[in-house]
C-alpha cells in the first residue's frame, strides 16, 4: 500500500477514477521479475538437454513457471488497460512454455492458450474502442455459436446430429469447447428419466486350495478352486455419503451411470456374434433361466465400445487394488462386475396393497436387473470374453416362499440367480444360504 503514487495532482473526474492507478514502475518490476523467473526455468530446461538432471528438478521448473506466471499475472491485473502489459504477459507465457518440462504437456497447452489470449488482449487495447467492441462481439458470436451447436450435438432416436453441427463442432469448436469444458448439451433427464444403476463387485481371491465339487449342470465331479469372496457395492448408503450434502455419493452414482451406456441387443452388423451370443446363453438356460417378463432383446445389453475397452478394465483394476492388502493378493484376485439397473415401481404396484396386506417395497431384490459385465483380473483384462452370460441379464426372480420346506429356511421371496452365477452355486444352495452371513449376496446392502 505504501507504494502508492504521489498524490494525484488532478482531481478524479468520476468515482471510477477515484482509485489511483498502480505505479508503472511497480508493474514493470513485477512483470519483468515474472519473465525473469520463467527465464530461469527455461534455461534449466535448456541445460537439461545437455546434462541429465534429477527428476525433482522438473518440479522446481514447474514451481518457477507457476511463480513467474503469477507475478506477471499480478502485474497485468494492476494495469490491464495498457496494451504492453498484455504483451509482457504473452512473452512470459511463451518463456514459461519453454521452461515447463516436456512431461507437463497439458500445461504447455495452457500456456500456449495464454500466449494467444495475451496477444489478443494487447491487440484489442491497441486498436480504437469501436474496433475493440466489434472484435469482442465477434468472439461472443463464436462462443455462443459453439454453445448452441453443443446443444444440437446429441443423437435423437435413430437420427444422428445434423451434418452442420457435426462438421462445425468437429472441425472448429471441439478443441475450444473441450478446453473450457462447455461441451454439455444440457439435455437433462431427456428424452426420459431413466433408472439408476448400481454396481456390485464380487472379488474372488484364489486361496490356492481345491475342493471336490459337482458341476451343477452336467452332474460331473471336478476339482474346484477355493476362493475368498468379498462383495462390494457402489454406491452405498450411508458408507458412501461422506459429506453432509451427499456429494461423494452422487459422484459415485455418476461413475455407475457411465457403465449404463450401451445398446440393447447386438448391433448389426455383428450378426455372427449375435447368433453365437444367443447360442451360448441357451447352454446355461437349465441353470440360469431368462427373465420371465423382460423382452429377450432387452436382456442383452452390449456396452458402448469405450465402456468395454477402457472404463470396465479401469474400474476392475481399481476395485481389486483398493480392496486387497498387497500386490501379491491383487495378482491372485479377479472381480466379477454386475451392473444393477434399479427399476422404479409403477404407481399401481407402489400404491396398491398386496394380497398379504403389505405394500411392495421399492427395494425388493426383484426390482433390480443385474447385468453381468465380465470377470476381470487386476490388470483389467477380461478373463472370459465368451462367457455364456457376458452382458446378459442375470435375473432375480420372484418366488413364493415355502414355509415348511427345509430347503427354504429363510423363506425368501426371490431367487437370486446373480449369486448363482457369481459364486458357481446351484439355485438350491442359494436359497439355503444365509445372506447376512455373507454366504451369498446380501440384498439389504442396497438399502
Amino acid at each position, binding site marked *: *500500500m505504501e507504494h502508492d503514487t*504521489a*498524490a*494525484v495532482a488532478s*482531481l*478524479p*473526474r468520476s*468515482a471510477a477514477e477515484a*482509485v*489511483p492507478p498502480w505505479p508503472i514502475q511497480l508493474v514493470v518490476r513485477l512483470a519483468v521479475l515474472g519473465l525473469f523467473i520463467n527465464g530461469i526455468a527455461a534455461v534449466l530446461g535448456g541445460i537439461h538437454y545437455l546434462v541429465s538432471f534429477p527428476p525433482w528438478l522438473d518440479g522446481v521448473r514447474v514451481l518457477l513457471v507457476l511463480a513467474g506466471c503469477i507475478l506477471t499475472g499480478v502485474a497485468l*491485473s494492476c494495469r490491464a488497460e495498457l496494451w504492453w502489459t498484455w504483451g509482457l504477459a504473452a512473452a512470459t507465457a511463451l518463456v514459461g512454455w519453454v521452461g515447463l518440462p516436456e512431461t507437463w504437456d*497439458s*500445461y504447455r*497447452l*495452457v500456456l500456449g492458450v495464454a500466449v494467444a489470449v495475451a496477444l489478443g488482449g494487447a491487440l484489442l487495447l491497441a486498436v480504437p474502442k469501436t474496433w475493440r467492441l466489434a472484435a*469482442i462481439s465477434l468472439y461472443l458470436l463464436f462462443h*455462443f455459436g459453439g454453445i448452441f451447436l453443443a*446443444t444440437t450435438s446429441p443423437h435423437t*432416436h435413430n437420427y444422428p446430429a445434423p451434418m452442420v453441427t457435426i*462438421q462445425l463442432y468437429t*472441425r472448429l469448436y471441439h*478443441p475450444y469447447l*473441450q*478446453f*473450457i*469444458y*462447455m461441451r454439455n448439451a*444440457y*439435455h*437433462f*433427464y*431427456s*428424452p*426420459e*428419466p431413466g433408472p439408476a444403476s448400481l454396481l456390485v463387485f464380487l472379488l474372488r481371491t484364489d486361496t490356492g486350495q481345491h475342493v471336490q465339487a459337482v458341476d451343477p449342470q452336467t452332474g460331473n465331479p471336478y476339482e474346484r478352486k477355493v476362493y475368498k469372496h468379498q462383495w462390494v457395492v457402489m454406491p452405498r448408503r450411508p458408507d458412501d455419503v*461422506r*459429506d453432509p*450434502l451427499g*456429494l*461423494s455419493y452422487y459422484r*459415485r452414482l*455418476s*461413475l455407475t451411470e457411465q457403465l449404463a451406456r450401451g445398446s440393447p441387443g447386438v448391433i448389426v*452388423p455383428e450378426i455372427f*456374434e449375435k447368433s453365437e451370443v444367443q447360442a451360448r446363453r441357451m447352454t446355461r438356460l437349465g441353470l440360469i433361466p431368462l427373465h420371465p417378463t423382460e423382452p429377450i432383446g432387452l436382456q442383452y445389453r*452390449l456396452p458402448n465400445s469405450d465402456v468395454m*475397452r*477402457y472404463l470396465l*478394465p*479401469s*474400474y476392475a*483394476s*481399481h476395485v481389486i487394488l483398493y480392496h486387497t492388502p498387497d500386490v501379491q493378493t491383487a495378482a491372485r484376485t479377479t472381480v466379477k462386475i454386475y451392473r444393477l439397473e*434399479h427399476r*422404479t415401481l409403477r*404407481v399401481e404396484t*407402489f400404491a396398491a396393497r398386496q394380497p398379504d396386506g403389505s*405394500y411392495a417395497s*421399492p427395494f425388493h431384490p426383484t426390482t433390480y436387473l443385474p447385468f453381468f459385465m465380465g470377470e476381470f483380473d487386476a490388470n483389467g483384462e477380461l478373463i472370459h470374453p465368451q462367457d455364456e452370460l457376458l452382458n446378459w441379464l442375470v435375473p432375480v426372480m420372484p418366488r413364493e416362499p415355502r414355509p415348511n420346506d427345509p430347503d427354504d429356511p429363510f423363506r425368501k421371496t426371490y431367487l437370486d440367480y446373480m449369486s448363482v452365477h457369481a459364486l458357481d452355486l446351484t439355485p438350491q444352495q442359494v436359497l439355503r444360504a444365509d445372506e447376512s452371513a455373507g454366504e451369498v449376496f446380501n440384498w439389504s446392502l442396497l*438399502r
Partner: protein
Amino acid sequence: MSQETPQAAASESAFPPVGIDAKFTAPDVQPRSPWQRWRDFWFCPADPTTLAFIRISTGLLVLYIHLAYSLDLQAFFGEHGWYAARFINRERKESPMVVTPWLDHWEDSQEGWAQLSDFPHRRAALMRFLRSLPADAAQRQRDLAYLQRIFAYRNSADVLIALNYVQSMATERELERYLTALQGGQVELSEEIVIGARPKSFGKQYEPPPVFATLSADEKRQLAQEIRHFWHALARVPWIDPKQERTYVINHFMEAGPVMRQALLEFMLTLPDDEQQRNALLDYLEYWNVDPRKVYRQGHAIFSMWFHVTDPTAMACIHGGVLVLIALFTVGLFTRVTSVLVWLATVSYIHRTQQILFGMDTMMNILLFYLMIGNCGAALSLDRLIARYRATRAALRRGGLDAATRAFLAYPPPSVAAGFAQRLIQVHFCFIYMAAGLSKLKGGMWWHGQAFWEVLVNPEFTLLHYSWYENTVRWLVSFKPVYHVMLVSAVWFTLFVEIAGPFLLWTRLRWLIIFLATLMHAIIAVLMGLNLFELLMIVMLLAFLPDRVIRDRFRGGSDLPRFRWCFHLPRDAECRTAAWIAAIDVDNQVRLQPVSAEQKTPYLLRDHGEMLREQEAVQVLASSLRLAPLLVPLLWLPGLRGWLTRRLFPA
C-alpha cells in the same frame, strides 16, 4: 404581437405543433441502430455488487465441492483411481476424432474407416491376422490380391459367397481340391469323404461359385494363385484356436459392408514396411478401432495437474493449496488473479476424471469462467476494501475527500466488465433452459407425466430410503385424481419454466420466472438430493436481479451509529490510519474530520460529542462498524488489540 424573448421563442419551437399539449407528450425516443442496441445490451455498465454476490455464493459452493474431494482424492484422481492415470493419459493423447468429408459430391464414393469387431475374442483374432501380414508391401499385395478382387464386386452376395468359398477350404488338401475344381480339373476324392453321402453329391461341394465360373482359363489360373496366397496368409497366423479364429476373420469381412471392407483392405495394403511404424498403427487400431491416418484430430485439448502429479503427498499439498485459493477467491482477495487460478484449478479436476461429473460441475464451470471475465472483486471483497483505502489515501494527500472519492466510497462505481459478465451468465442460462426444455419434448414420458413419477420414486436419488417419505408418497398417490393432477402439474410446470422462461425473463414477468425457477430448483434439490446442482442454478438466476437489489440488502440502515474520526491531515501516519478506517467503514458511519495540530493524537468523536481515544476507541469501532463482527474474534488474539491501538494512535 408581443415581444418574445429569444429564449421563449427557442423553447416554444421545441414544443410540438398547436393542438397538442407538449407537457403531456412522452419525450422523443431516439432511434437506435442495431449496432447501438447490441452495444447497449452487452456493454452497459452495471453495479458490480450483484456479480460480487454471485462470486461469494459460487465461491462457497466451489469450496464445499472441493472440500468433499478431500475424502476421495486418491479414489477419483489418483494413479489407480476409478479411471486410472494410464487410461486417461492415453486417451488425452490419442483419442481419435473422425469426420466425414464436407465438400465432396453426392456421387463420390463414401469414405469409410477400417474397424474391428467390438467383441474382444473376435478382435483378438483379427489382430492376430493383421499382425501376421508380411512386412514387405509387394508380398502383402500378393497375399491380399484375392480380397482386392472380391471386394470390388458390386453385388455383396458375390462377396459373401467368395468369402464362404475360402472358408470352406479347411485344410491344404481341401484347398487344392477346390482350386483343381476351379480350374476345371478332376477332383480326386479319398476315403475321407463322408460315408452315407450320395454318389451324385461327390465333388459338387468343390464347384466354384457362379461369379468365378464365367472367368477365362487364364483368369481362373490367376484367381487360383490369389486364393492360394490368401489361404496361406491365413494359415501362417499363429492362431490359438485356428478353426474358430479363422472363422472370426472371415465373418468380419462378411459383416463389414462394402465401404468398411474397402477401408480395411486399404489399411492392410498401406501398412508401412517399417516394423515400428506398423506396430504403432496396429496398436492404435486395436485400442481405438480406427486407422490413425484417417483421423481428423487425435487427443483432447484438456489439462490437469493430476495428469502429471500422482504422488499422494504431493497431491494432498496441491489440493490444500487449491482450497486456500478458492477461499481467497471467495473473500475477494486479488480477485483478478485468484479467479483465473481457481478456474484453471477446478477445470483440472474436471478434466482428470470426467466419469464422476454431472450437471453441477457444468454449472460451476460456467459461473467460474464468466466470473473470471468480469471484475467480480469490485464489491463485497477484500479488494474493495483495499481500493477504498487507496482512494481515501490519495484523496487525503490531495487535501481531503473530493466528490468523486466520496461517490466511490458510497457505492462501487458501475462497471462495463461487470455488466458484460452478468449478460454472459444471463444469456448462457437461457441456452441451458431452452435446451433442457426442448429436449424433454423428445420423450413420451414428459408429455404423459410419467417423467415426474420416475423422478419422485427413483430410489437412488430421492428420499425413498426413508420410510416417512415412502409412506407420504404412497398416501398422496393413493388418491388417483391427486396422482394424475400432481404428475401433469409437475411436468407442465417444468416445461413452462424451461421453455417459456428464457423469453419471459426479458419482460416484465422476470420476477415471476425468477420465483418459479427458484421454486423448481428447490423442489428438485429436496426431491432428488441434487442440492449443490440446484444451488448453483439459483446462483445463476441471481444475474437477473436488478442492480440495486443485492446492494440494498447489504446496505446498513439509517439507525447505525455515526462517528467522526478527527486527525491532523499533514501527519502521514494519521492519514494512513484514517484511510484504513474509511476502508473498513463500508456503511460510511465514520466521517473523516481534519483538525488542528494541537491534537497530538487522533480521536473518535461520537455524535453526542463524547471523545474516545486508544483502546476505548478501538473497542467502540470494533463493536459499531458493520464489518466489525468479523474482526471482533480477532481482537481476542494475544497482542492484536495492542498492535491495533498503536497503529490507530501512533503518537
